[in-house]
């Protein structure tokens, strides 16, 4: 089971959409068993799945969320608290269908809860829960019901005990950037932030790619291409650090089109995006196998 975290401390770069569509692509088009975990207290992915485009609720998910996930104390925060307290000296949290929601044959989901905001206040000791995600994934691997090939984490645009744990054990970190100066600036800031906060830095592969690229008549605009060159330049600078950060700049490009915004609440994978996600997914597999 390989874990992939999507992160950028700059908000609005499209972390949630990319994570979800990648997972959908891997599950639907590559027949992989995939779990997506929403670790963001903003609950963007969780809400997007709840809400359909018309604004009505998807009955099954909402019912499961309220009646099973919340009532049975099977949220991500409950799991984190169980790990933090380690009552009886072990991680007492069973992986059941109240914790993981099944979206389709191959696609599974662990939603977020608004209480994850508490983690921003450092109520939990980061060092103590550093291996929480590793332990949780270990439990999943030992549960015969789920044999996930890949786990995707939609990470928040801030640094919490949970993101600390996710990033400490990820097989790959994905950083989407946009064609603007702020997103490109974010690469260096984030890599510096991660390597100084996560000790020892496990040096997972980090892949940067262009998301929300602007097009004109079906071709990337010069400005998008120029910003991508700048992002690649930043990656090259980071590579030259003495810490030997394993960062790659992938030429995979996801265009900014209206249909992608409808893709999460819609129950389908948008066909016009298939070649773009195929390329991104192939890159991921070439690194993770």
């Amino acid at each position, binding site marked *: 089971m390989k874990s992939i975290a999507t992160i950028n401390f700059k908000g609005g770069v499209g972390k949630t959409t990319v994570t979800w569509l990648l997972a959908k692509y891997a599950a639907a088009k590559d027949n992989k068993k995939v779990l997506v975990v929403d670790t963001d207290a903003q609950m963007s992915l969780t809400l997007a799945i709840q809400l359909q485009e018309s604004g009505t609720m998807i009955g099954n998910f909402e019912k499961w969320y309220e009646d099973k996930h919340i009532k049975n104390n099977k949220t991500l925060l409950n799991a984190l608290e169980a790990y933090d307290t380690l009552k009886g000296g072990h991680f007492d949290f069973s992986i059941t269908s109240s914790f993981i929601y099944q979206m389709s044959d191959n696609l599974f989901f662990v939603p977020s809860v608004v209480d994850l905001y508490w983690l921003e206040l450092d109520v939990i000791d980061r060092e103590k829960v550093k291996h929480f995600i590793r332990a949780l994934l270990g439990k999943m691997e030992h549960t015969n019901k789920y044999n996930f090939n890949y786990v995707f984490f939609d990470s928040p645009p801030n640094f919490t005990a949970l993101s600390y744990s996710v990033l400490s054990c990820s097989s790959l970190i994905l950083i989407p950037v946009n064609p603007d100066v702020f997103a490109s*600036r974010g690469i*260096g*800031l984030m890599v*510096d932030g991660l390597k100084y906060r996560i000790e020892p830095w496990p040096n997972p592969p980090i892949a940067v790619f262009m998301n929300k690229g602007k097009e004109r008549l079906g071709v990337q*605009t010069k400005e998008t291409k*120029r910003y991508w060159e700048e992002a690649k330049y*930043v990656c090259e*600078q980071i590579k030259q650090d003495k810490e030997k950060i394993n960062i790659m700049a992938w030429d995979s490009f996801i265009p900014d089109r209206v249909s992608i915004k409808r893709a999460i609440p819609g129950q389908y994978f948008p066909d016009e995006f298939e070649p773009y996600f195929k390329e991104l997914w192939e890159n991921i597999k070439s690194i993770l196998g």
Partner: protein
Amino acid sequence: MSRLNKITNKIEKVEKLLKDIKSEIEQYELEKNKGVRKNIKKSKSETIPSREKLIDEYNKLYQSFLSGDSKEVFSFVESKTINYLKEFCKANNISIVSGRQSKQKISDELVRWFQQRKAISKRNQ
């Protein structure tokens, strides 16, 4: 008769001289035109480096920008022809409004991108 012969001989000499002068003028004009054409041809076939070299040139120009000031960029742009600069911008994805390129605008655009690169690649080491 001998006097008439002398005059005829003189006319023949003047005619020959005029012929030589005319021939020299024609030769001179021919060479002059050839030279102009050669120069025109030379300016049309200005050698523009490959895309990779133009990208390298951009990066070297950025290094000069980093170590000094933007004057280096302006003098680079001034020393190149518009055709060269068009290819340079194309290779480096620098957007310039077609048909309205001026060296000043190109310099400004390059400096803007270099300033951004400097800001983007600033690290908290």
